[in-house]
C-alpha cells in the first residue's frame, strides 16, 4: 500500500511517500495511523494527535473509521487550508 503525507505531517514523518505491507488486522484509517506510529519516533510524534489528522483513501476523503481494506493509496494530512 502506498502511503502519502502532506504539509506538517510530511515534515514530521520526514518523507512524503512510503510503501508499506499492511498486516491483515489493520482495516481502518485509524488503525493504520496507530500502526504507522510504531514505525519510528518521527511517525509517533507526527501522529500523536489523531484528532488533528484527516485522510483520503484512494483519493476519496473519509472519516478516520473508513476502511482501508484493498486500498492502493492512503493519504494522511492536516485539516485543509486552501482557497
Amino acid at each position: 500500500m502506498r502511503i502519502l503525507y502532506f504539509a506538517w505531517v510530511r515534515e514530521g514523518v520526514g518523507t512524503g511517500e512510503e510503501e508499506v505491507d499492511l498486516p491483515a488486522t489493520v482495516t481502518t484509517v485509524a488503525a493504520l495511523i496507530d500502526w504507522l506510529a510504531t514505525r519510528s519516533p518521527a511517525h509517533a510524534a507526527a501522529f500523536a494527535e489523531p484528532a488533528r489528522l484527516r485522510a483520503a483513501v484512494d483519493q476519496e476523503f473519509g472519516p478516520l473509521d473508513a476502511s482501508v481494506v484493498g486500498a492502493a493509496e492512503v493519504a494522511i494530512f492536516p485539516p485543509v487550508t486552501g482557497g
Partner: protein
Amino acid sequence: MIRVLVSPAPIDVAEELAAAEAAGAGAVATFTGLVRADEHADGTVAVLELEHYPGGTERALEKLAAEATARWSLAAATIVHRVGPMRPGERIVFVAAAAPHRDAALDACAFLIDRLKTDAPFWKRETRGSSASWVEARDADDAAAARWGN
C-alpha cells in the same frame, strides 16, 4: 462545461472569465481570492506557499464543480487554484459559475468557494521574516461550508 486547473502559473482572470461567458448563459458570478498581507505582531506575510495533493486535489475539485453544476443547472463551473510560492496581492484562487439567472450563479459561486475551503486538499504555509508556519484551519470555514448541506 467544467474547468478545473491547479497550477503554479499566475491566474489569468480575463481568459477564465471569457471562457465562462462563452458557455452561453445569462449570468456569470465570479470570486477571486488574493494573498492577504495580514498584519501580525511578528510581521507581515512575505511569501505564502501552497501545497496540494496532485491527482487528489483535481479529483476533489472536479467533484465539487460537478455537484454545483447538477444543483444549479450551470452552463459553466470553473475552479482555478494556484499552488507553489506566491506573494501578497497575487491571485490564489478563481471560481466562476455561469447560470441562466443571477441568483443561481451567485449561490453556485459562493458554494464553490465555501466548499473548496473545506473539501479540497490544499495547505498554506506562511513565511514571516525568518520563520515559516503552517496555517491552521478555521472553524468559521467549516461553518460556511456546512450551510450548503452535506
